[in-house]
């Protein structure tokens, strides 16, 4: 009778472990946590990074800037729909993170724009530094999403 609940728990545990493996490795910082980070960089050096920033503090924080030693430019942008037109709007002032709330950078929305990215051969993670007004500096290593298997010759 107890075999069925046990199997469910084991299944959930397996799912949870799988999810954890895909998580970004981050340096835990008082007041801020990063989840579900990923980056996609194309062979032309253009790319984007996405993540969820959790503000554990009771006061509003602000993501001020992003940088990567492998990217010549990293900026905060947002895709905005105006009718059927898709616009990319720059946010040099950064993005607010509500108290005890989340900031989501995701495809089709707010994101980190990356230009001039040079990836070392075989790189699987992109070093990314977030600058927050309250929580300070967060150093990340963001998993790189693979595109097609090989580059075209």
């Amino acid at each position, binding site marked *: 009778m107890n075999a069925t*609940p046990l199997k469910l728990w084991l299944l959930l545990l397996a799912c949870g472990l799988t999810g954890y493996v895909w998580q970004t490795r981050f340096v835990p910082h008082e007041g801020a946590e990063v989840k579900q980070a990923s980056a*996609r960089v194309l*062979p032309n050096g253009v790319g984007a990074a996405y993540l969820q920033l959790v503000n554990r503090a009771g006061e509003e924080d602000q993501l001020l800037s992003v940088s990567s030693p492998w990217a010549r430019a990293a900026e905060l942008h947002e895709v905005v729909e105006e009718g059927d037109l*898709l616009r*990319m709007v*720059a946010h*040099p002032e950064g993005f607010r993170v509500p108290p005890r709330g989340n900031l989501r950078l995701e495809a089709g929305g707010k994101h980190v724009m990356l230009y*001039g990215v040079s990836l070392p051969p075989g790189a699987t993670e992109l070093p990314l530094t977030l600058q927050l007004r309250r929580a300070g500096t967060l150093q990340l290593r963001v998993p790189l999403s693979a595109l097609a298997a090989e580059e075209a010759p």
Partner: protein
Amino acid sequence: MQRGWRAAARCAALAVMCLALAACSEPEGSPLELDPPQPAPELVAQGADGRPFRLSDRRGQVVVLSFGYTSCPDVCPTTLSRLRGAYRSLGARSDEVAVVFLTVDPERDRPERLHGYLAAFEPRFQGAVVEDAQLPRTLERFGVTAVRRIADARRYRNLPGTSGEPPYSIDHTGGYLLIDREGALRLRYPHQASAEQLASGLRRLLDERA
């Protein structure tokens, strides 16, 4: 103790079911049906593979046409990733589909550059370049808009590859136009459409003539 386990298991099962249901429902991304179907405008361009490109040459295949540019960091890579997902999910039937990407940035996206960019997603994707002089009229025929947006020069002065000129982004119509084997415009998917939704539309048009 046993009661606690069973209650926990029921909660877990419910949570999994809710997640599954949430994943199934996709209110966004549904296509606009073009009724009655209109013949797709002709598109004459330089192919990214160096050969002349004519949309009408693809009669007999189902065509999915989308628009973007290679310096686009988020929307266009997402568009092409979804197209790749849809295309590959068709298996052998993908041979009956032509995925065409028309650049809205012919100044920077010369054929070789466009070819390399698309090949990173799927080698069989076809790029097309219409020169600046003809591009506005071409886009208008397909009901597509593209607007160049110049960046703040003070922020971008030191960006490489721009030879001192501020780089620009291009606001453009997103989404996917599906054209049937007879060359008629049939479905217009918004940019939120998933790979599964696109594949569904493609299969429908593929099935119209076995």
